[in-house]
């Protein structure tokens, strides 16, 4: 057997961290399977919950925003399709972000009893949201069939926006996961962020309605587009619904830049703090 040597010292970042992370990919898989497996244990409806929730949310949004508030969809696109596409990627982001933020505190029993690269926990927390994402995408397909809507070549971009949504969830989630270890206030803050996010992102409406709006001479779209999720949701919708959907390439570039910078800072922060989790948790 080849010699395996470890040096344990204060404040010494693990030299082989990323290699260790890769070696622990099976653990990542098993923790993901654990989360998926326990999700609907002892529920009567089981996995159908993953379908019931997005379906109900969509129906309510159609009722409230389309029928009552009469928000227009992008020209040539059925409102329910627009809502489901936006909702799919938003829900994925929101769930993944929430799960990642609580991933360390939810696994206290592991943190205090066994060592492995701590990044495994936030990474495995994404699995459940990803399954939900796939189911929600299935819902989109069903509704698309109903409206006899066929996506075009734009759909090739879908994985890219999906990835961007995942990176965004990690970028913000990792930061909150670390802070959550010391300050459980985060658990209170996150549902609030999600709730606000739902309205300041183009989910129930199209960003087209924001473009060109001014308030006291301020171009609202400029502020609106600072939200990195706007570009991601627009892009995701555009790749599903094609050219008729409102799409502003600039906001996607801005989103990608913000997400990448935040991600790098978050990972750095996480790595710096992960050895103290056990003392603070």
């Amino acid at each position, binding site marked *: 057997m080849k010699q395996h040597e470890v040096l344990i010292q204060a404040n010494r970042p693990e030299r082989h961290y990323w290699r260790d992370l890769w070696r622990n990919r099976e653990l990542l898989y098993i923790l993901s399977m654990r989360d998926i497996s326990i999700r609907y244990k002892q529920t009567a409806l089981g996995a159908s919950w993953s379908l019931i929730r997005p379906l109900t949310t969509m129906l309510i949004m159609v009722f409230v925003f389309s029928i009552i508030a009469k928000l227009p969809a992008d020209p040539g696109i059925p409102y329910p399709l627009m809502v489901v596409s936006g909702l799919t990627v938003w829900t994925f982001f929101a769930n993944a972000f929430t799960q990642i933020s609580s991933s360390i505190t939810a696994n206290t029993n592991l943190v205090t009893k066994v060592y492995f690269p701590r990044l495994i926990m936030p990474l495995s927390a994404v699995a459940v949201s990803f399954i939900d994402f796939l189911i929600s995408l299935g819902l989109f397909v069903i509704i698309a069939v109903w409206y006899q809507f066929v996506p075009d070549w734009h759909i090739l971009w879908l994985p890219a926006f999906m990835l961007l949504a995942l990176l965004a969830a990690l970028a913000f989630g990792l930061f909150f996961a670390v802070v959550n270890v010391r300050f459980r206030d985060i658990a209170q803050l996150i549902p609030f962020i999600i709730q606000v996010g739902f309205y300041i992102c183009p989910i129930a409406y199209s960003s087209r309605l924001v473009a060109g709006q001014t308030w006291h001479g301020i171009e609202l779209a400029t502020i609106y587009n600072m939200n990195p999720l706007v570009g991601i949701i627009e892009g995701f919708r555009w790749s599903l619904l094609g050219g008729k959907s409102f799409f502003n390439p600039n906001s996607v570039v801005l989103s990608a830049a913000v997400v990448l910078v935040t991600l790098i800072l978050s990972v750095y922060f996480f790595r710096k703090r992960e*050895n103290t989790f056990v003392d603070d948790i």
Partner: protein
Amino acid sequence: MSVITAENISKQYVIDHQKGKGGTTLRDMLAENARMLFGGKKNTPSNGLSREEFWALRDVNFSIEQGDRVGIVGHNGAGKSTLLKILSKIIEPTTGSVRIKGRVASLLEVGTGFHPELTGRENIFLNGSLLGMSRVEIKRQFDEIVAFAGVEKFLDTPVKRYSSGMYVRLGFAISAHLDPEIMIVDEVLAVGDAEFQKKSLGKMRDNSASGRTIIFVSHNLTAVQSLCNRALYFERGQLIEQGETNQVIQSYLSKVSKTRLLREWTDPKTAPGNDLVRVKRIELVPEYPDGTTHIDVRTPMTVRFEFWNQMERANLNLSMHLNSLTGECIFNVGTSSQLCSEGVFSGECVIPGYFLNDGSYTISMMIVKDTATPLFQLEEALTFEVEDHRDGVAWYGKWPGYVRPQFPFTLSSVGSEQWQEASS
């Protein structure tokens, strides 16, 4: 070849005390909730918190050779768990370094990461991979693990429906099939039934026969003695002694510092008590059998108590409570009542050997008037510890019960006819 070299390792915790919540000791806080431990951030005393620095480990140096089975002994709060956590990479030392050669598996609890909703099968994979086994390894040893734990019938039952015995057996079975070069084990023998403990200890011995290094923490000195060839003795975060197991355990037992066997007051004006009675002296005198220097389950003891009576005439009797360290009363005995005039009185109570189980005990003494009115009680006057001792018993688990009497209990043959009839 030394596989573990620890140089000057220390671990400091900074603890924020909440003011006005007096009475909580440092150890209580540590034991009560790790969340009370704050690291890094500074709090100004003005926000109602006072800060206290606490060294869980201080300048510890040792090295462990390949194939050594090292027992770590010491009281609660001596730093044993902190050391294990540093060696397991779970916590960072504040200063110093540890160099480890070889693959380490840490077993700090039985069934780490077990999820109650998951089945036995799923938990084997979860726990196994948390302990560093690959899925291929787990699959290869799966049947053996299941057979070792004896849970074949319940493999697809959620572990929340397991009995606690099954749960523990499954947890230990998985870790017993790990194949690391260095194994770190914390108190796992304290659980499980007798037969299983024997099997586990046997399994651990086999492991070390194949050149594996084992680090083992236990309160159970008998188990340490039987398993380990070397021992480290910790006291308040410091490594007091290391060396051959029996020698280290002897000095550990002789330095048991919690013990307080004598208290005495010379001035009747300030001694504990009141205007009616005051305590003069209380003492516990063990009668050590030949060759022993500490109290164990065999040792008979005498409690002597003296007090000043300042009343002219009173009907007095003594009442003694013997409590476990956790505060449960093991027994209460009293003297008969006696008419006492002013002066010094003494009482004596004999606790026979082979009566108390191993553990820590406190003694409280009460002076009672007219067999009804307590005049004064001296709480937790004495503290002592009864060590374990076993002859001809191959089982190392905690002996159950508050007392360990040796009542006449015999096993004898009543003839062999019946068995032969039944089997023929």
